[in-house]
């Protein structure tokens, strides 16, 4: 990044990415570039491969990159394990995180945190004080899982924030709270100095009422079929459904 002559690297750059799970090809030909400070959303029907993309970006071994490359800040991280990626600034909110017996939410927060932080007050903001001593995700409702994931992410404070359906299962009351946490993660109150980037999976698009997105992508059958203005895309999806996306010529 130091050389002004050189084209500035993107936060994340995917070139012709292909991913297989258990030997089955799920994603192919994915091209995506997320600049510094940008927020992208990813639409797509159930089973289209959205979660698979995020899991591959985080580096889980089951999600095997069979073609193309993943670059973070210009560095090829395709073969790095998840912890190395976390250390380089990628953080992910799971759609369905596992329960870890004997490991409390408080421990998860402290594991995640880069710096010392006031766990209690952060948990308070996320309405999770009562959950800190509980085994992480054990008996958590859908909405509690989302808030717990966001609490951990806030502790982690990643540069590239990957969110898998952050609003699903969250009641109206907590939607505000979730939206606020995401805005904070993505430094939405900064304009020129914003450096955090995000990739948000959304099935419903509700999250766009709380978080501005710069670019939208539609994933169908494992490949990106459309990139553009997220609000227009959402409008189209709401009106015509995803079936139209695959054949869309507009």
């Amino acid at each position, binding site marked *: 990044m130091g050389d002004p002559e050189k084209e500035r690297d993107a936060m994340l750059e995917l070139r012709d990415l292909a991913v297989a799970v258990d030997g089955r090809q799920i994603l192919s030909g994915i091209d995506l570039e997320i600049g510094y400070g940008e927020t992208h959303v990813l639409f797509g029907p159930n089973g289209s491969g959205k979660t698979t993309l995020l899991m591959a970006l985080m580096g889980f071994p089951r999600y095997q990159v069979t073609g193309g490359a993943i670059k973070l800040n210009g560095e090829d991280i395709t073969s790095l394990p998840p912890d190395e990626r976390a250390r380089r600034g990628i953080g992910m909110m799971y759609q369905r995180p596992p329960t870890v017996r004997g490991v409390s939410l408080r*421990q998860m927060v402290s*594991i995640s945190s880069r710096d010392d932080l006031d766990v209690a007050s952060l948990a308070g903001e996320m309405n999770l004080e009562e959950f800190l001593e509980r085994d992480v995700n054990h008996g958590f409702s859908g909405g509690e899982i989302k808030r717990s994931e966001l609490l951990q992410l806030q502790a*982690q404070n990643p540069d590239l924030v990957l969110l898998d359906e952050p609003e699903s299962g969250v009641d109206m009351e907590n939607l505000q709270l979730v939206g606020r946490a995401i805005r904070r993660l993505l430094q939405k109150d900064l304009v020129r100095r914003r450096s955090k980037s995000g990739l948000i999976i959304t099935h419903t698009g509700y999250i766009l009422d709380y978080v501005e997105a710069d670019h939208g992508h539609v994933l169908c059958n494992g490949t990106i079929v459309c990139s553009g203005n997220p609000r227009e895309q959402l409008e189209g999806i709401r009106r015509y459904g995803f079936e139209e996306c695959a054949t869309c010529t507009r």
Partner: protein
Amino acid sequence: MHALEEIRERARAAAAKPALYGADLDPCEYTAEAGECGYVESLDQLEELGAEELARAGVEISGKERSGSYVQIDGSVVHSKALEKGLEVLGCREALEKYDWLWDYYWNAVAVDADKYTADVELNPFEGYFMRAMPGSRTIYPLQACLYMREPRFVQRVHNIIIAEEGSELHIITGCASKHDIEAGLHLGVSEFYVKRNAKLTFTMVHSWAEGMDVRPRSAVVVEEGGLFMNNYIAMEAVRSLQTYPTCRLVGEGATARFNSIMVAQPGSELDVGSRVVLGAPGCSAEIISRAVTRGGNIVARGHLKGETGGIRAHLECHGLILEEGGAILAVPELEGHHPDVDMSHEAAVGKIAQQEVEYLMSRGLSEEEATAAIVRGFLNVKIEGLPPRLEQEMKRMMEMSRRKAL
């Protein structure tokens, strides 16, 4: 001493009787000779005897926050003293001389002819402690007991009698340890617990043996009406073989028993650890929880709940984690009901660490080793309810110490 003669007779008859479980050992192959250790009035005088090793077993040498202590090294009682009113700590033989009535408790909970090890303890010179909480007494701090072995090839014979009198509350922390470089040794420990009406007894034991040690604790508990017995057992360090299967009889209405066992088998270790509760009166309840982790050794985790009468509740939970190939875990949960109105259940699971959980922690920044360690630690981190907060802290500290050495 007609009764004692009868006891001896039964012991002699069982002298060659192998135990039901565990490798068959011959106590005669060990020596009963060990250097004498003199009695010390104050615990800090123990330092020259290898205080670090005693600390290994979780014993608080300073005696701080303890209401009394018993320390035995090989075959010598080096210290026994109660510091608070309402408590009594004596050598077991001394106590039997002092109190005629104690003979009624002697070999009452444990059968002297259970196997060759119980018989052996009776037929040979032994030491051990007598601990007693007077009726209605309550102490803030726990009593501590330490049984230490340092003579090579020694057989340590121990007979303990613990009585929580009516309405009392007694907490005991005990460490059993051997010098870590001892090449062989045998520990035979008989413990008889009596929990009287509405009394509460908690017994937290940490074992820190050595690779060459064989260990055969023989314990039994009798709990009367409204009484509570809680046993927390931690064995994470190397041992050659360890076999124990304490039985707790709930004989009075509303009596409760809880057993928590936390085990780690090092490569070459054979652990066979069980807990049994016989629920013999209405309103009794029992819970047996065990967590077993193998790093290459073998573990048999047993549990047996026997509901003899209606209106009882009991649950058994047996979880095993195999960390290394070569290690094996056999979980044997048994439920036995003798009445239509029993509520008994069990839950058993044996497996490896879930990769998904490791990866979850890795995605938060832990290396694979760190993530694995955190999960194993969580697995062993049984939530123990019913200990006073201070003691719970203490138990966590002891567990943490053991865990650090074990994993």
